[in-house]
């Protein structure tokens, strides 16, 4: 069972984006905390696509200093990052 710790709406949208953009046949089975890098899903171009998706979908601006695996390397990390950004919290810590 996948435990979705961040907002379910955000997590669902992120999962749907990954499934559609990276042609994932098993997106529903991808653990929310699974590393997108280690699963071979994400590369440097993919990161830019995810950043574009976040900015467009959630109406937030991602700073260069925030493009870090700790913010973007899993569905859960992305969802939590989006939540922190929406709440105006710090997001550039490593």
């Amino acid at each position: 069972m996948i435990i979705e710790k961040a907002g379910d709406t955000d997590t669902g949208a992120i999962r749907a984006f990954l499934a559609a953009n990276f042609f994932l046949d098993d997106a529903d089975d991808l653990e929310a905390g699974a590393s997108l890098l280690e699963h071979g899903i994400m590369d440097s171009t993919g990161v830019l696509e995810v950043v574009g998706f976040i900015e467009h979908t959630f109406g937030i601006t991602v700073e260069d200093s925030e493009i870090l695996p700790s913010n973007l390397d899993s569905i859960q990390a992305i969802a939590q990052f989006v939540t922190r950004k929406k709440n105006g919290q710090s997001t550039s810590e490593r």
Partner: protein
Amino acid sequence: MNIPPAPGMLAFSAATLTIDNAAETERIVAELRAQLRGMRKRGLVLGLSGGIDSSVSVALAVRAVGAKNVFCLFMPENDSDPESLRLGRLVADTFGIEAAVEDIGPTLQAMGCYERRDGFIRELVPAYGPGWASKIVIANSLSGDGYNISYLVVQDPEGRQTKLRMPPAVYLGIVAATNMKQRTRKQIEYYHADRLNFAVLGTPNRLEYDQGFFVKNGDGAADVKPIAHLYKSQVYALAAHLGIPEEICRRPPTTDTYTLEQTQEEFYFSLPYDRMDLCLYGLNHGLSAEEVGTATQLTAVEVERVWADIAAKRKATRYLHLGPQLVRPVDEIAH
């Protein structure tokens, strides 16, 4: 083949990569001749950039098949450093080979290479135009555990530089337009190869080949790649053995692809070639990060970061090495 150090005597260092230059030359020459026999080709065509890799490749080609069976091409375009052509001619003259200049600038212009590239840049910098220059740089993997994001650097006519993050469409568009340069050069090389019944020689060294530092169906396309197994510092050692002009051996590696001057470290590799060589060798041979760190003046943590970067680039560029993938094998055709 590396000359093995005496057991327990030598710590890992640049000397570990020392090769027997004469024996390596003979091995490559013999292999090239056998490969040409197998392909029933009569000689070798290659592009000569005035860099160390193509210069060493020319010298090896001449040893393999004789100067009269090597045909070199200088293929400048609108953004090329004129120094590349001068140094290329120097190599061709040194080894007495026939060479031709094929200016690919008008071809690229006609295909819209420059206009397409500048159009993508203008999506970020609307004022970009005549008098401006640009290049793409990569975040240095030594600086942390971030992603290898590429940035656009533009320079305005007054010389002020600005570094910008690119949306994926802009990044991919600039790279796609720029890749026309390498693919056009390959088009010309194969024209001459077909005309002469020669094979095309590709010039990547091991770092470039391993890390996917080439354009698929561009400089990555070739019939033979005789130095792809050699670390860059080994290529430099062979250069001295083969009599490559000193001026070329001293020239820092450059991409000579963008309008702003760009080193290979800015564009792709996280360290200068000699230290990248040691990190790659250490990774390939299972050495400890501490051992490699001592040889490269890096901390073990930094070596681990370079190794992670190497692994990431291998993964990201694996498709560059692949031929077209079939749904089912066609067993009658061997690969």
